[in-house]
């Protein structure tokens, strides 16, 4: 069964937000692949014998790519923090009661019950954001130390370097786990309505009215949608 949508769309993510999201996504995928290459893995497991991946066991190539992707990730992260920090846009930060609300949303999805009304972002999205931001921040901070320690002019204590390495590796695995959970969320049909906004920037207004009613009301208050037009849109899910 397919979702019935209203055919009226509303912008959820601006072009710059999508650009930052995809820059972070692509750079993290490159960082994970090249980082695993530094472990070292690809020669041992003969990945470098796969056509087109001969370069994967070349530490110089993978480290250069790692540095370039890290530069892109840091740039995107700085842009994100400065842009939303300045504008005080904190609606992705976790709020009090998010754990409970998140539980209620998942319970409602599984039991076909009624979800609590949501803002622009679902409670679990805010929690997931905090989790991924924490781990990205850890990999960036430890990564910067790792870059500096390679320079002859920098001297760090062995204890600091050991913990830097451990935290860098552990946070990387947390990010992999976070990505799996992020993608896994789309197993639930309810969440799939959010997917188009990451590509086109827009989501269905009927869906917003149905699931993100708090944001919907806010949009009416901000006069970003016409109340009369809003009355006409509806969203009937497969439930």
């Amino acid at each position, binding site marked *: 069964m397919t979702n019935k949508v209203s055919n009226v769309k509303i912008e959820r993510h601006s072009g710059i937000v999508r650009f930052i999201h995809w820059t972070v996504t692509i750079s993290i995928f490159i960082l994970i692949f090249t980082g695993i290459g530094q472990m*070292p893995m690809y020669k041992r497991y003969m990945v470098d014998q796969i056509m087109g991946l001969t370069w994967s066991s070349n*530490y110089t190539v993978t480290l250069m790519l790692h*540095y370039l992707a890290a530069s892109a990730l840091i740039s995107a992260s700085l842009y994100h923090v400065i842009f939303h920090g300045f504008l005080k846009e904190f609606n992705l930060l976790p709020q009090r009661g998010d754990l409970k609300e998140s539980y209620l949303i998942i319970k409602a999805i599984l039991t076909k019950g009624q979800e609590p009304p949501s803002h622009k972002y679902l409670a679990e999205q805010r929690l997931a954001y905090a989790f991924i931001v924490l781990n990205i921040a850890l990999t960036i*901070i430890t990564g910067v130390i790792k870059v500096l320690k*390679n320079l002859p002019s*920098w001297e760090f204590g062995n204890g600091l370097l050991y913990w830097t390495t451990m935290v860098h590796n552990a946070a990387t695995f947390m990010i992999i786990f976070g990505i799996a959970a992020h993608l896994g969320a789309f197993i639930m049909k309810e969440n799939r309505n959010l997917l188009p906004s990451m590509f086109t920037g827009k989501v269905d207004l009927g869906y917003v009215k149905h699931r993100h009613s708090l944001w919907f009301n806010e949009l009416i208050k901000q006069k970003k949608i016409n109340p009369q037009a809003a009355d006409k849109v509806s969203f009937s899910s497969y439930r």
Partner: protein
Amino acid sequence: MADISRREFLKRGVLSGVTAGFVLSGAEKVAEASENVEPVGTFIDLTVCDGCKGQEVPSCVSACRTKNESRFPVPEKDIPNYWPQKKKEDWSDKKGLTTRLTPYNWTAVQKTKIEHEGREYQLNIPRRCMHCVNPPCAKVCPFSSQTVTKEGAVVINPETCLGGAKCRDVCPWGIPARQAGVGIYMKMAPDIAGGGVMYKCDLCIDRVKKGQKPACVEACPKGAIKFGSRDEMLKMAQNRARQIGGYIYGDKENGGTSTFYVSPVPFEKIDSALKKQKQKQPNPEAPGYPGMPVKVGSFLDTPNGLATGMLVAPIASVFAAGYKVYKTMKGEVDSDK
């Protein structure tokens, strides 16, 4: 938003900048200054070393083996292959091998005859870890199992080494030797991951910390291996090279090392001779028979060159974000809120 004051703009800027800038500046605060311990070094005079002529095993090699015997690997009986490959690095049946570097032999003397300016030289070259000043092996170990002591010795921690051999791959001389069937990986998933433990000279750091000389230095009957502060050894090597009109090796290689060789023969010729010798070894591809490539660069040269360039994009990003925010606050551009 449009009537935001300059003061408010700057206030928010500082707050956001502090948060974001921590990524770039925070690391500086945790950098540790090294304690005042002078780095040590060795000077190996190839005009003096005769390879302990008449002895089956040179004294430096024997002394090294005796000193480190208790630390040699004791692998388990059934050593798994490096899945999915059908091989493993097991030197446990070649413990007696003294002519090359193995997990059971951390110093070897390479012997070669080289003709230079109409004269034939018999050269005996003690080989072991060069203890580089900025060692890529230690810097790029993915588990920080290799470290540099304050004395400048590069040491491997056999308790945490997983034997990936990346240190050997980035070493211009391929010094660290791998033994399978030993180490922490045997307690994890040895059938699918891990390779063993890497072994090499640690400059007898336990002795050095006690104010003693490394075993090889003390055992040399000719005094061909000198030990002291790195600066002092470099000066000594330079003087000796000047004195004999000879050549020096180890001062520039891999970004600079703590081991300086002086030879009456150019090291290009020595490197070429060693390469030819290696081809005559039973298994020419096997590591443990290092050459002497002259002015060989460091694995870290390329990434370190890129490191400064890496700052360009984040700095540009900060300015771009600041500009976009300013425009948005002035009401010229819609925010994402």
